[in-house]
């Protein structure tokens, strides 16, 4: 009995969600061996996360991202190891690769789990509505395919050496090679990206117009942060979708999220609940966002936001 984990890495550095997935898998495995698969390079430090054997799939195609090929490597390895479960992080790439795996094997896949208990069927708790709702489900399959909701568990190290490393060259068909990254475009102009920013200042429909964001932009600028907006704003055509914070926009995890005139619809909160602290500026002290916020100012954003900017300038002078 073993568990196989697909580990994403950034040039050899395992991603945080991948380490979380390993921690999750360890729990699921309950002492059984944990195998991991990486493509291209050998990621570091996996022994500290309980990986017994690291399998590295090598092929030219892995020079760039090729989800079908990665999935085929997983499938081939799983065919040899016969694990009880194949687990990956529930990131875009993780879900994509595992969807390919599931399709190839025609097995069910439970995406974005926060909990899983082995069994026949296995019991999982997975995320719906971007995190605003949970689903308890039974997974009926000889091999359980799961991805792990990022940040559902923390990555926890355990004492351990290794892992043992095995390399292999998966046999890939033409179809596996068709879907691969062949180029890059739209390199961002610099400036703070929404997903990386330590501070994000957002506004919703209450901004009133595209021009109504002037105060928000000023405040974001003063704090070295990025400007975000709600879906209503993008749907109205006031700002680009790249500024949208929410379930179908960008999911952010800044140190501070300042939400101005945003009521806190569940789809929006799904995008910002990763923030370490949330400050809500709203006329309605019963707005739903206040039950997810750490701080609040009750008032009109057009009055409050400029006042904060002025106060910051004062504090700095």
């Amino acid at each position, binding site marked *: 009995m073993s568990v196989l984990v697909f580990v994403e890495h950034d040039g050899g550095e395992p991603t945080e969600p991948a380490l979380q997935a390993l921690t999750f898998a360890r729990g699921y495995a309950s002492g059984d061996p944990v195998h991991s698969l990486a493509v291209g390079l050998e990621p570091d430090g996996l022994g500290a996360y309980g990986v017994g054997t690291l399998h590295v799939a090598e092929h030219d195609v892995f020079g760039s991202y090729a989800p079908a090929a990665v999935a085929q490597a997983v499938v081939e390895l799983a065919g040899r190891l016969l694990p009880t479960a194949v687990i990956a992080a529930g990131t875009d790439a993780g879900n994509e690769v595992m969807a390919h795996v599931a399709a190839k094997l025609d097995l069910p896949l439970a995406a974005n789990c926060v909990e899983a208990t082995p069994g026949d069927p296995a019991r999982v708790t997975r995320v719906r509505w971007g995190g605003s*709702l949970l689903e308890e489900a039974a997974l009926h399959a000889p091999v359980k395919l799961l991805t792990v909701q990022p940040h559902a568990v923390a990555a926890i190290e355990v004492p351990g050496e290794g892992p043992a490393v095995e390399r292999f060259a998966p046999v890939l068909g033409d179809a596996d090679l068709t879907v691969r990254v062949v180029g890059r475009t739209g390199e961002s102009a610099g400036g703070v990206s929404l997903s990386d920013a330590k501070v994000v200042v957002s506004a919703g429909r209450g901004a009133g117009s595209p021009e109504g964001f002037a105060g928000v932009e000023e405040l974001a600028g003063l704090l070295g942060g990025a400007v975000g907006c709600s879906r209503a704003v993008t749907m109205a055509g006031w700002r680009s979708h790249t500024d949208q914070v929410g379930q179908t926009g960008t999911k952010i995890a800044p140190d501070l999220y300042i939400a101005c005139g945003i009521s806190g619809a569940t789809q929006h909160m799904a995008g910002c609940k990763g923030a370490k602290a949330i*400050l809500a500026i709203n006329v309605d002290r019963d707005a739903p966002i206040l039950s*997810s916020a750490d701080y609040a100012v009750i008032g009109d954003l057009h009055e409050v936001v400029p006042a904060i900017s002025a106060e910051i300038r004062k504090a700095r002078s």
Partner: protein
Amino acid sequence: MRMLVCVKRVPMTGGKIVLTEDAQAIETRHLGFTISPHEECGVEEAVRLVEQHGGESVVLTLGPPEAVEQLRDAMAIGADRAIHLETDVEEWDPQATAAAIVDAIRADEAASGPFDLVFFGNEAADSGNYQVGTRVAYALGRPVATGLRGVAVGDGTVRCEQEAPGGRDVYELPLPAVVTVKEGLNLPRYPSVPGRLRAQRKPVTVSSPSRPPSRLEKLRLVVPEGQGKEATILGHGPDAAPAVVEVLRELGVLS
């Protein structure tokens, strides 16, 4: 060009999700419904592509009788016809959904020729399973790129752009292909009144596939406990600014 867009009817939730008494579904008595956001952009894209290249766009849904509303919405912005795989109140798991869609696609292609592109949303707003499009692609033996924010059809190929850190990754797939898209692909248009009126008359083919047993079987839904936060009110109106700056300082964001 022949385009197919697969859409799902989802409720438009507010600030709080309330479940039915049996915890099997969201209480939707007060809620409106819409096409799930990602695939709304898929519909817009398919319509634009047909406007550009000529041909036909078809919209399909697996859903309850009421889901015909979403099909009419799609046809109101330009989809030519619709396929409704009517279900009852039970949910279909991703494999069952994909299988029914594959059957419908095969039947339609047998009659009218292959779809150059089949669009899916990257994931449905409600169930968020991330897999139906990929499964359909494999069953049809077609390549699939997911999570796309750019789609351009060329000579027998489709150029796909996928968000990646710092930019976008580009794929080129031969047609016919399957793509799953994300909101941000385009800004969907609002239907016009003539569009809505035409949509009423566009054809909808209805069938009622039977649901196989679920292998990812929903047992119940649970609203996660709030973090139990109670926001500290720093003040009212602009007078709260000094208190806010104090907090900014404490949080270390005021350099």
